[in-house]
């Protein structure tokens, strides 16, 4: 037994070494981070306990990880497989990444937080990330530290952050999270298709064609007549409706389905039946393909992070990982532009929370300060990545400058975001939003595709939500 497992281990580490070697030889230029630390890869991926402290960060994708690795000034070294980051003082940052879907991340995080007390110091969660859809669940618990009272950020540190980004993670005046981004949503459209359908690709003029839902529907019909789809899938416009509901989803143990949600259902059913969309679902491969060179879709509702994180990636013919640069000529880079669209909305947003029980409070404070409060770093992130960061002053500066996004064909989208960011209202967000949103989209997808009628979809929604949240007993539908 011992022999066997040891041999396996050697074999496995052999694989890692080969992989690292491949990275070193094959990396033409792009993957500098991976190639730079080949030598240390074996050591780094082994035992993080080897000396110094360990900072455990829990999240659901590599977005924050790449921000951290690229912009946190203390970063010294990144493991080849990115599972750990070593800081200059020898602290090892250990990344625990669990996918978000189907409440998976929340369930794993719950488990981790509930075991926080009994966990060894180096296994305790120090920082965890939360999304707008369930931020309240954690903010409204004893597992999350107050960023001012417990962690030590000052009002001056937080002064330039958008107010809504502070409100959503505050309970009774105690703020328990902070973010580096603001996430106003826009409508990103294909310039070439807009020209073909509307005769113009100018953002202001296109916006005038799309400024309310009736106009939007008209354009959808015109696009259809020319062989295009207005939207890619069922859920594309979901956020524009779900952000404009009149009250939170859940009141006590009752789910109140807002009238606006049924408007989304009706519109999407119409689009599906008339062929205005491509019957994809959010994040599926069809949806991703529709955003790329082979796509024939007019546009996508996207918020800030979606444009630099998702849309840009999908628009390329050769991914960055394959050594190609994101630039005009690679796929449809440069063919997108953004406008406000029919309704203001936001989508997503990631907050950094300090976990109660952490033994690295000073480090948490420094991470929060550098990555969410530091004006220079915030500005640099936006200039480098086109992400929209949470610093009003820096953003206004860029908005009024001659900044241009190459990806968006020379548009200064930061100016549009700066306008939209002021309109964000997150007062109707609640702790159950992620599970409810996923169940709602999944249940009504069957209605859109014609597998069930509307009433069955409603029933399935109820069943599915109750599997996730047994305490929610009733669903009330709008009359």
């Amino acid at each position, binding site marked *: 037994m011992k022999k066997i497992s040891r041999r396996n281990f050697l074999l496995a580490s052999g*694989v890692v070494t080969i992989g690292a070697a491949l990275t070193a030889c094959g990396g033409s230029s792009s993957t500098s981070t991976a190639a730079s630390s080949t030598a240390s890869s074996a050591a780094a991926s082994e035992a993080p306990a080897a000396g110094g402290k360990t900072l455990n960060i829990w999240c659901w994708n590599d977005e924050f990880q790449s921000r951290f690795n690229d912009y946190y000034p203390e970063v010294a070294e990144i493991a080849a497989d990115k599972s750990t980051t070593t800081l200059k003082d020898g602290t090892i940052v250990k990344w625990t990444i669990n996918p978000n879907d189907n409440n998976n991340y929340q369930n794993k995080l719950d488990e981790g937080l509930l075991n926080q007390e009994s966990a060894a110091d180096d296994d305790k969660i120090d920082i965890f990330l939360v999304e707008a859809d369930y931020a309240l669940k954690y903010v409204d618990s004893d597992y999350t530290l107050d960023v001012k009272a417990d962690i030590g950020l000052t009002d001056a540190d937080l002064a330039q952050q958008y107010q809504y980004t502070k409100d959503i993670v505050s309970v009774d005046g105690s703020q328990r999270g902070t973010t580096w981004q603001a996430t106003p949503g826009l409508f990103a459209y294909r310039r070439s298709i807009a020209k073909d359908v509307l005769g113009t690709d100018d953002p202001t003029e296109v916006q005038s064609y799309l400024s309310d839902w009736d106009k939007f529907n008209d354009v959808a019909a015109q696009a259809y007549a020319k062989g295009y789809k207005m939207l890619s899938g069922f859920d594309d416009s979901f956020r524009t409706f779900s952000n404009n509901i009149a009250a939170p989803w859940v009141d006590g143990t009752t789910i109140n389905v807002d009238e606006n949600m049924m408007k989304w259902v009706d519109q999407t059913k119409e689009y599906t039946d008339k062929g205005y969309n491509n019957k994809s679902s959010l994040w599926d491969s069809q949806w991703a393909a529709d955003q790329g060179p082979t796509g024939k879709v007019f546009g996508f509702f996207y918020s800030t992070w979606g444009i630099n994180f998702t849309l840009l990636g999908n628009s390329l013919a050769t991914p960055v990982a394959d050594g190609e640069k994101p630039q005009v000529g690679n796929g449809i880079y440069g063919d997108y532009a953004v406008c406000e669209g029919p309704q203001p909305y936001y989508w997503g947003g990631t907050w950094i929370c300090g976990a109660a029980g952490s033994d690295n409070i000073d480090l948490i404070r420094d991470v929060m300060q550098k990555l969410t409060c530091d004006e220079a770093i915030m500005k640099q992130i936006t200039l480098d990545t086109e992400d929209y960061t949470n610093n009003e002053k820096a953003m206004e500066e860029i908005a009024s400058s001659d900044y241009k996004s190459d990806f968006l064909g020379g548009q200064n989208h930061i100016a549009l975001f700066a306008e939209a960011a002021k309109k964000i209202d997150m007062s109707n967000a609640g702790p159950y939003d992620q599970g409810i949103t996923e169940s709602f989209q999944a249940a009504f997808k069957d209605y859109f595709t014609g597998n069930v009628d509307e009433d069955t979809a409603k029933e399935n929604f109820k069943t599915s939500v109750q599997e996730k949240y047994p305490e929610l007993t009733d669903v009330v539908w709008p009359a």
Partner: protein
Amino acid sequence: MAHAPKTRSEKAVLSARRAWCYLVLVLISFLCLFFFYILIVNSTRTHFEIQKGFSLLPGKSMLTNFKNVLADANIPVGSGIRNSLIVSACSAALSVYFSALTAYGIYAYNFRFKKAAFAIILLIMTMPTQVSALGFLQLITKMGLKNSFIPLIVPSIAAPTVFFFMKQYLDASLPMEIVEAARIDGAGEFYTFNHIVLPIMKPALAVQAIFSFVASWNNYFIPALVLDSADKKTLPILIAQLRSADFLKFDMGKVYMMVAIAILPVIVVYLLLSKFIVRGIALGGVKG
């Protein structure tokens, strides 16, 4: 043994039947192999090539895809393979050794509850482990074994199907004289088992070791509930993660490569040992 067909027409009928059989067999083989062929082809093509359409010819990006999979910290394949190997190898070893031990215990000794013990094992043989998953999870959480390999490895000591196979094999191929002769020579019972019985059981051990290994290698339900941290996850969990974590689907080439990495090692080992394995299923295998 069979009579040779006598007339020409009989011969013609026979060869027509034979042709039909081959046709069906080829079709079925095609069905079995076709999907793997696409898998291999697509794992050598870039994301964009895959999106543009299907091709029967492999692309040139195998190394790139392989490199990209290994470099992706969200799906730590390296540690996934290592974890899967550790868990599967240990489970296979434990399950084979202890099943042989149990089978020998029931085969070679007479004791009061022997019949009852055998009956119980047969009764629980086909009981799915999922029915007690809830209690199992709570138990290991209380024991502090969550996110560890122990709850995935140790329970394989009680593997009724492996036991049954071993028992069948012993019934057929271990004469008690050998055991008695060993006793006369003064061998202890464990010595007899380890040094005389086990070597005789080698073929059965090997076949069952392979099957236990594969079963554990492919297991998803329990590991997914037990393992949490990225450096502990086994391959099937990573595959499931690939399905649900949509941000990983930027690159379908990578997705195919990842599936290939999960599937192909088993296939290669299988092809190397196939004669042995296929015979093995038939060997004790009426009750597989």
